[in-house]
């Protein structure tokens, strides 16, 4: 070989026998890794079918976004950055190892020349440094900064970081000693290695010491690396392999809904055993890195309830791995405490925060299904709501008003009376049966009529869409109600629906189509934004106020609609929009979702009080929302805290701006 061509000897200072031992050990490590993966694979296979491989392109796009570019991880800036450093650092080092393999095993002379200098030496050295810095930062985070989301005292969490750092450090030392030992003329292209070689000189290491030290560190580096490989499927390092796959297999829409149960086929209901989850749900469990972002985002966890979404995942994961997926214990109740399951508002904050796209909420609902349908044991107030749904078609036991009471004073056509309209206004029980929301309904009808929208209602023929029953886990009752509604809507030939409530919206949009109910459905905030932008609603009278918008979870995270209500607010002259500390994707639930409007859990603080405080802290005079449940919860929070902030629906606010101009 031309001595002027930059390259290096691969197995300097390692005997031929040593290389053979290396290959044997590497094979052993890879087998251990592969075997470990296979063990998990067998557990995942116990799950129910789920189709998560297609469509390819949008899925690859999210891998690019969330694996390559770390978008979700970067929502927490510092940890995102150092993880990015160690991710790409190790990715390059892995690539470098592949180059070595190509050269050593395929005998292809790739490690030479400019490529050797710029990539294999300089880039890898710097990327290794980045990785080492990333790991160091992670160690600082874990041991010194100690954010509350990280669980304490887990030995493996620390061990993994120390292992990574040890691999990197031994790698640099090996490199440095090789440079020193061979007098590598290209040594300066590896800046860190070069510094190490200088250090060896300063320490007065002779050739013998260098060779001895090199051999020892080379084997240490190699052994640690093989340990690392074998450890991958046995620790949270598994996420190196699984997380990109899980990002690829993420739900592309309707992330919060559990699967539709086929009652003609199913004999038992809900997740009592691992085999009742989908294979994707089981796969999910092994992806978790215990970063705690889910629990840090969870409103139940934040207010001192028993629920921690990470703990739910870990309880399931540990039980699955302990029993190889064949647990005798009932998952809902024995493995995961029922009280934790009943604490979930299905707000999706956990799923939105999870950097590896674990789907907590559908699992929780799947377990609730067991409690609600097999055991029929549901917290008392929720049970009363379910009974009321069954007997009265609405969950508001004791509601002393009829579904059409709100129409007093506004003109709206009614399908049951034989009147028709292009759009059906789906009122929803939370709006119709709670007087606080009547002014929202009346404002909305005034706005839509003025904009020339041809509107009608179902009146007393409307029954609950079934959302609360579904969230509580009584899928049977949900489907009973859904079929009744679909039958009514199809009988009247309804085509376009505008809903007041995001929960109704979500159900129409994602679930009814699977049951034979296909409608064009809009949430009222989006329709209002559309009409404003078309000039059909012209807000003119100023509303001088700072307004904070509270994102309803079933509008925001469940359906990605963050902008429309804000567009409505910005269209109102005088309104100054401000944001709460937790808004949009990071919004904080009002506490009512998941059937928890009917919760009697008095543990810790009440979610709606905390949310109301967050609104008050913005200094806004008005907290706007676009959900009748959020409205009731925030009104309750304001009453309890005497917060000096006024909750209003976007429709009420817009109506004020239009009304006074008339």
């Amino acid at each position: 070989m031309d001595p002027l061509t930059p390259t290096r000897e691969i197995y300097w200072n390692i005997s031929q026998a040593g290389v053979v031992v290396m290959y044997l050990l590497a094979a052993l490590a890879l087998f251990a890794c592969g075997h470990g993966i296979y063990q998990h694979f067998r557990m995942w296979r116990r799950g129910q079918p789920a189709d998560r491989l297609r469509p390819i392109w949008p899925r690859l796009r999210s891998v690019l976004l969330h694996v390559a570019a770390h978008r979700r991880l970067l929502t927490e800036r510092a940890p995102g950055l150092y993880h990015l450093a160690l991710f790409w650092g190790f990715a390059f080092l892995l690539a470098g190892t592949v180059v070595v393999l190509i050269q050593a095993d395929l005998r292809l002379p790739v490690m030479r020349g400019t490529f050797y200098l710029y990539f294999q030496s300089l880039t890898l050295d710097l990327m290794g440094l980045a990785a080492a810095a990333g790991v160091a930062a992670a160690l600082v985070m874990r041991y010194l900064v100690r954010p509350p989301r990280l669980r304490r005292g887990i030995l493996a969490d620390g061990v993994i970081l120390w292992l990574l750092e040890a691999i990197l450090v031994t790698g640099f030392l090996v490199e440095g000693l090789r440079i020193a030992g061979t007098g590598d003329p290209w040594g300066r292209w590896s800046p860190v290695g070069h510094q190490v070689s200088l250090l060896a000189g300063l320490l007065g290491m002779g050739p013998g010491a260098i060779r001895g030290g090199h051999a020892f560190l080379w084997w240490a580096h190699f052994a640690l690396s093989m340990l690392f490989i074998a450890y991958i499927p046995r620790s949270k390092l598994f996420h190196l392999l699984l997380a990109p796959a899980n990002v690829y297999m993420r739900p592309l829409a309707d992330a919060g809904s559990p699967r539709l149960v086929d009652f003609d086929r199913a004999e038992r209901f809900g997740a009592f055993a691992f085999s009742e989850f989908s294979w994707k749900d089981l796969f999910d469990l092994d992806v978790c890195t215990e970063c705690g972002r889910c629990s840090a985002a969870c409103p139940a966890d934040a207010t001192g309830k028993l629920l921690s979404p990470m703990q739910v995942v870990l309880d399931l994961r540990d039980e699955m791995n302990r029993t190889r997926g064949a647990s005798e214990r009932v998952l809902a109740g024995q493995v995961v405490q029922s009280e934790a399951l009943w604490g979930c508002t299905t707000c999706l904050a956990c799923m939105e925060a999870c950097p590896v796209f674990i789907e907590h909420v559908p699992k929780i609902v799947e377990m609730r299904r067991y409690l609600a349908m097999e055991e029929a044991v549901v917290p008392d107030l929720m049970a009363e709501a379910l009974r009321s749904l069954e007997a009265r078609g609405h969950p508001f036991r004791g509601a002393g008003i009829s579904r059409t009471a709100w129409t007093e004073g506004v003109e709206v056509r009614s399908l049951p009376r034989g009147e028709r309209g292009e759009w059906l206004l789906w009122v929803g029980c939370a709006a119709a049966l709670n007087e606080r929301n009547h002014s929202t309904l009346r404002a909305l009808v005034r706005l839509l009529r003025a904009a020339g929208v041809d509107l009608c209602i179902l009146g007393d023929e409307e029954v609950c869409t079934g959302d609360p029953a579904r969230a509580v886990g009584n899928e049977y009752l949900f489907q009973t109600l859904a079929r009744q509604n679909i039958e009514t809507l199809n009988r009247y030939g309804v085509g376009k629906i505008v809903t007041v409530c995001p929960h109704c919206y979500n159900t129409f949009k994602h679930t009814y189509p699977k049951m034979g109910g296909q409608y064009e459905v809009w949430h009222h905030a989006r329709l209002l934004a559309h009409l404003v932008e078309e000039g059909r609603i012209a807000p003119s009278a100023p509303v001088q106020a700072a307004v904070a918008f509270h994102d309803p979870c079933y509008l925001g995270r469940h359906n990605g609609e963050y902008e429309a209500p804000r567009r409505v607010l910005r269209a109102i002259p005088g309104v100054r929009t401000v944001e709460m500390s937790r808004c949009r994707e990071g919004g904080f639930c009002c506490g009512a979702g998941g059937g928890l409007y009917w919760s009697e859990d008095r543990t810790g603080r009440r979610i709606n009080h905390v949310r109301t405080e967050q609104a008050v802290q913005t200094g806004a005079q008005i907290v706007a929302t676009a959900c009748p449940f959020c409205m009731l919860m925030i009104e309750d929070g304001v009453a309890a805290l005497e917060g000096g902030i006024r909750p209003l629906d976007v429709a009420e606010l817009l109506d004020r701006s239009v009304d006074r101009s008339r």
Partner: protein
Amino acid sequence: MPDILVVATAPLGTLSRSSLELVAGAHAIRGPLGLGVTGLLLGTGPGLATAPQALHEHGVARVLRVDHPLLTVGESDAYLRALEQVARRENPEIILVSADTMGRDLAVRLAWRLGAALVTECSDLASADGAVVASRQVYGGRAVATLAVTRRPAVLSLKPRSLDAPAPDPVAGSVEDLSVELQQGELSSRVREVLREQSDVGLEDAQVVIGGGRGMGGPEGFAQLGELASVLGGAVGASRPPADSGWVPLTWQVGQTGKTIRPALYMAVGISGATQHVAGVSGSRLIVAINRDAEAPIFSVAHLGIVADYKEIVPALVAKIREMRGQ
């Protein structure tokens, strides 16, 4: 002269207040129907000695007394048998029984045994054209039915605290002791144990009642109500949800199913005001409602309303009253 038989008891050593209410009911119809009033005292123990006097003081001259050791509290079967024997001997035209937990069964079973006409749970008695006209709440207090009883004999049970006790009207009177045949062995049920749930002031007789509802959120809230009740010298009651949830004893329940109360002041705290509850408190002189929900139906029956969280009002009210009294 044919008679109205008033079935009176004195379980706590004196004539019960509901017995006096029966006397009031009897007085309301005796004149127009041309009937006399006879008091029948059933029971055992010291109360039977003084109770006839109390009946005389309220216009009942003739008092029959059955004192039998088996006529202890809660022994429905024994009372029924004793009452049946007396009724068959006396042949009254009308029998008035209090619709308390024992009387409400007695009335029904007695009517069946005597082949009599029956109206239960009356809230008012009057007469028209020789018939007894009884009023009673129906549909959870949403409506009031008026029923005419044209047949004799008739048994009517009167809901406690529906009528005021009669004004004193002393008459000279007599007491006849009657004996009845009662055997322990022929009774089909027997009280094994009496579990008394303490309350300092009887809910039904309290002049001030503080009622709590689901809005109290749990048993802890009722402790605050207890304090308020004690500074006002009153009793604590509850609507159905707290009683059903076990936050308070079942006996605290006020309303159609529970007790009917007519205090001078009823304070409804965290009570939404379902008709079943309102049915039991509507006779109160002053109703104050404290509720966070301005739309709660309780405000439609209250005289004074406060829209607020009770936690902001009740402790402050207790402190204020204590301060006024220099405690």
